[in-house]
């Protein structure tokens, strides 16, 4: 599987999870579990490249990092809005 195919596969997995009503943010490990025939390091590189392209975004739990589709599920501001001045 080349890098472009891997990136497509990652997006496909994320979209399918959301469609099924599953998690909108997933760990790198979960991606690796879904694509067992690819090297974990290649999956990491592809997922990070997708973030740079704006097709995925990071979401922090504070101590670990998850990946999500931009605009889907809880936003980066974690539902916190700036109060009115």
């Amino acid at each position, binding site marked *: 599987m080349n890098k472009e195919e891997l990136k497509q596969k990652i997006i496909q997995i994320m979209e399918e999870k959301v469609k099924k009503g599953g998690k909108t943010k997933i*760990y*790198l*490990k*979960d991606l*690796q579990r879904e694509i067992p025939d690819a090297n*974990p*390091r290649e999956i*990491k590189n592809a997922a*990070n490249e997708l*973030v*740079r392209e704006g097709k995925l975004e*990071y*979401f*922090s*739990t*504070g*101590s*670990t*990092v998850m*990946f999500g589709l931009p605009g889907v599920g*809880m*936003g*980066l*501001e*974690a539902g*916190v809005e*700036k*109060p009115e001045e």
Partner: protein
Amino acid sequence: MGEVKKHDTPKVDQLKTGPWPSFVDDIYSYAEKHKNQACFDIMGQMELSYTNKETHWKHGGIVGVFGYGGGVIGRYSDQQEKFPAIWAFHTVRVHHTAGKWYHTSALKKLCDMWDSRGSGVVNFHGSTGDIILLGTVTDQLEPIFFDLTHQLHWDLGGSGSNLRSPACCMGKSRCEWALIDVQELDYELTMAFQDELHRPAFPYKFKFKFSGCPLDCVAAVARADMSFIGTWRDDIRIDQEAVRAYVRGELKPNAGAFSDRDWGPFDIKKEVIDLCPTKCMYWDENEQKLYINNSECNRCMHCIAVMPEALRPGQDTGIAILIGAKAPILEGAQLSTLIVPFMKVEPPYDELKDFIYKAWDYWMENGKNRERIGELIQRVGLNKFITEVMGLTPIPQHVRVPRDNPYIFWKEEEVEGGWTRDVAEFRKRHPA
């Protein structure tokens, strides 16, 4: 600048009455001087937390700036109406220098930047080692990153499932016992693993720490997933005349470090020989001579620290590599385990980098979510990790406790003829 709103904080104020310098004093004096509402609001929210006995911080979401998967920890107040100046109060981790040496002009520039773009509150340093800039809003993150990298030439540190900012002791810059150039090693590995530092790669966090000698001033053995400790493999150098000077009381033990009270005359047997963990030392009273069985020494360096003028580490130096320390999350706190007792390290450190990649590759493939590498080793077994994963030959020093289970499980390849050997043929030769 409008009027600032101060909060009544009787519980927090009590912290100013103790014998030690108080962060409450520091934050209030900064808040008064700069009329900084965020600082007054931190104190107000802390007072509320003391009253309610629960935190009013929420965290998560934001991880960094564009392209970075770490370096910023999102933090929000859940009392936004009461404390609007800290509605968002993100923490920015700035990668510290090796050995934590700074030029004051660099620190002044950093503080000026933080005065204008953040709360003005800093923490030198956080547990991981980074400089912690406490409290800014989301809109300021990219400008802070631009200022840090383009004007100050510094970088963000690690957070999340990344390699965290590697940390080392002061090494050869101050310490006569530094057996390796930890600052060089720290810098080299930091630059080599930039991708792992800034982009999430692992099931959980991963920390490197470097100590120049086994005294381990950075507490790498307790805190790092992978510790690199300076060590030696030849003999401890002994100056017998200096040993005798210690015994006669002419030299102060521990270089006078415990001279604040009278501990009585120096007793080499009680303070050195009996405290040797491997019992590899012997003081001959008649000969007035110290003997060390170096093959049994585990390089704890206690004797050298007690009698620094008499004993010095050997001269054939390198590193010991230990893996697996962590604080209690899944399996409770644990210290690192010695994996490689000695490795020569010289630029470009290729052998060391190969070792690190080997451990990472296995962890990335087999580690569970939020499982540190030490917990993975606990789960699969140290034996398997050493032999099958790292391809090393086990040595007696890897064994912490002798086997108490009399049953040995052999693998097929370890048994002559495997599982399919002809038992009838075997019994002909061994009828009983």
